[in-house]
């Protein structure tokens, strides 16, 4: 990808492993022809908003499903699990009609709205909380801690590794989202970077050089976040494997 991004236009289809005259021209074209920086900011806001909202709703739902005994708890969990199996394309148009009636078309809020709850995140955190030592929770309760305090002061700090892993998965998933932003946004300035990449693809031939340049740029934030959080991610998977 990086090598193709550095190739000049008439060398795009060359079989040579390295470009004979590498240049940053494709990056310049990409930045000139689409508002890539604006799109990256939009994508970051969308991905971060979706991730934070999904984590919050998943933590609350998982706590309720694992620590409270109430009528229909199993059914509620089963329904949440079933929604995970429904492709987003099925509910995309009803969601679109809803956000358009709310007057939110072409906004980051509308992008985030259907992604504020993730069935996958709930299921993953339910598993993590089920394996959390009940004795610790009971000890906290005997000390007079409320559910809210137990959740945020006892459980969440001890679930940092799975939460970090989940955050990365949710962030990458939102970062790579294409259809929902494509349906919702009206101009390149309000669009996300995945739509920007698509703009170099057409029936009349793909612009591989700028496409690879903007793809390279789009990969960097996700790569940076993974590098920062990789310790927590590895810990999470190691713990899952040892359990």
């Amino acid at each position, binding site marked *: 990808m990086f090598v193709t991004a550095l190739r000049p*236009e*008439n060398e*795009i*289809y060359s079989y040579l492993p390295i470009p004979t005259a590498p240049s940053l021209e494709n990056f310049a074209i*990409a930045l000139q*022809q*689409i508002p890539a920086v604006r799109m990256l900011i939009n994508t970051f806001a969308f991905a971060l908003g979706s991730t934070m909202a999904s984590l919050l709703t998943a933590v609350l739902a998982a706590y309720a499903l694992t620590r409270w005994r109430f009528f229909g708890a199993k059914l509620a969990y089963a329904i949440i699990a079933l929604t995970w199996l429904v492709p987003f394309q099925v509910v995309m*148009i009803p969601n*679109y*009609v809803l956000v*358009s*009636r709310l007057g939110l*078309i072409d906004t980051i809020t509308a992008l985030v709205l259907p992604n504020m709850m993730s069935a996958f995140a709930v299921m993953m955190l339910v598993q993590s909380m089920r394996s959390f030592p009940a004795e610790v929770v009971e000890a906290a309760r005997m000390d007079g801690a409320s559910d809210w305090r137990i959740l945020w002061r006892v459980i969440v700090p001890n679930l940092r590794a799975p939460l970090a892993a989940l955050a990365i998965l949710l962030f990458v998933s939102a970062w790579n989202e294409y259809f929902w932003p*494509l*349906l919702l946004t*009206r*101009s*390149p300035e309000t669009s996300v970077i995945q739509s*920007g990449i*698509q*703009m*170099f693809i*057409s*029936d*009349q*031939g*793909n*612009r*591989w050089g*700028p496409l690879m340049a903007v793809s390279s740029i789009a990969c960097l934030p996700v790569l940076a976040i993974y590098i920062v959080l990789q310790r927590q991610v590895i810990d999470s998977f190691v713990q899952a494997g040892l359990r």
Partner: protein
Amino acid sequence: MHRRSVLLGALASSVAALPFSRAMAQSNTSIRFYNYNLATAGIGAEATLKMLARFGSENRSVTVEGVGVPVSELMGRVQADMVAGMGPDVAQLAFTGLSYARDYLGAVALEDAVPAEELEAHLAGMIPNGARLGKLDGKTYALPYVFSTPVLFYNADIFRAAGLDPDTPPKTWEDVRQAAETIQTATDKTGLLTGIFGTTAGDWLYQGIVRSAGGQLMSDDRKTLTFASAEVIEGLSFLRSVAKSGAMQPVFDTGAIEAMASGSVGMYLQTSAVQNSLLRGSAGKWELRSASMPAFPGHDPMPSNSGSGLVMMTRDPAKQRAAWELMKFLTSDWAYTVITSEIGYLPLRPNAIESEEFLAPWIRENPLILPNLDQLTRLEPTVPYPGPNYAQIMQMVNGAAELAVFGPSDDVAGILTEAQRQAQSLMP
């Protein structure tokens, strides 16, 4: 009595024209324009933005919101936005979806929205074969906008390397077969690729093949599919023989464009709209040339058209007026000068082609467009399938044709006849 009839007629005309005239006087009309060129980066979007900017400066009372939608998502997006109550006022729609747009999305016939003399005057400035592209049952549902015809691109360097004369390109499919076989024998290059088939090909080029073979896709009343006729079977059997000889390879879609652009293919039959991609790949590497669509034995080539027309979707008189002004502007001599010289589509206005003020100097410097211009006189409009299943019918017909040419069975007639029987059941 006669005088009274004339007066009554004039009064009726005035009343009929009243909403449109009153709408003209209104100011600050805002319209939404869905455009697939705006959804791409580079020349298509830049040229469209340039045209919209000039329209805005010349029509201060009209605000155009240009919405870029990828062509593959266009029809779905129009439907979704109509459900949400915010559909387009004007949409750039592919001709293949025109019937669906009329019957299911409420596309407005220009004859029902625009004063007859204005419409007549504007269409009169267009090439007659072009002006009829957007017509269905005698009414104009799309004002032809950006489109092109099939062109046989060829690599002059490969021709020379194979001992062929690049100054006398193939004219018939038999010539194409011989040239392709010579290229494959004399060089390590691919002889021929085409854009007839493939997942993103649509059916416009295949329709040109059908018409060039002497057949037609459906009856004139648009009720019965007829693509399994003896003429089409004969034409596809000929193409099958070319494919079986190895002269034509089953490489489609962007893979074929890229193979041609990389300089490893002798000939490539495809829309002229890929010209810029091929020019970018050939720059400084090899010589790109173009020729007309090849003919089948005993028939004249009848090129079809790719591309799209501008469709009026709004029913509001003020917006219809603004939409018509935009549609006229985007198909004016000046606009076609931009569309042709900057994007690569065909100009539909003879005045734009011949005038020194518009395209004449550019055409002299860009001879690759000449075969495309030459084909305008023989142009056969792409026929949209009727009914809500138009896309499935198109896939079925194209799939059968691809199987007939490249599949394992030599029973071309059987494949086409069975596909015609199945596709007919999807017709309204």
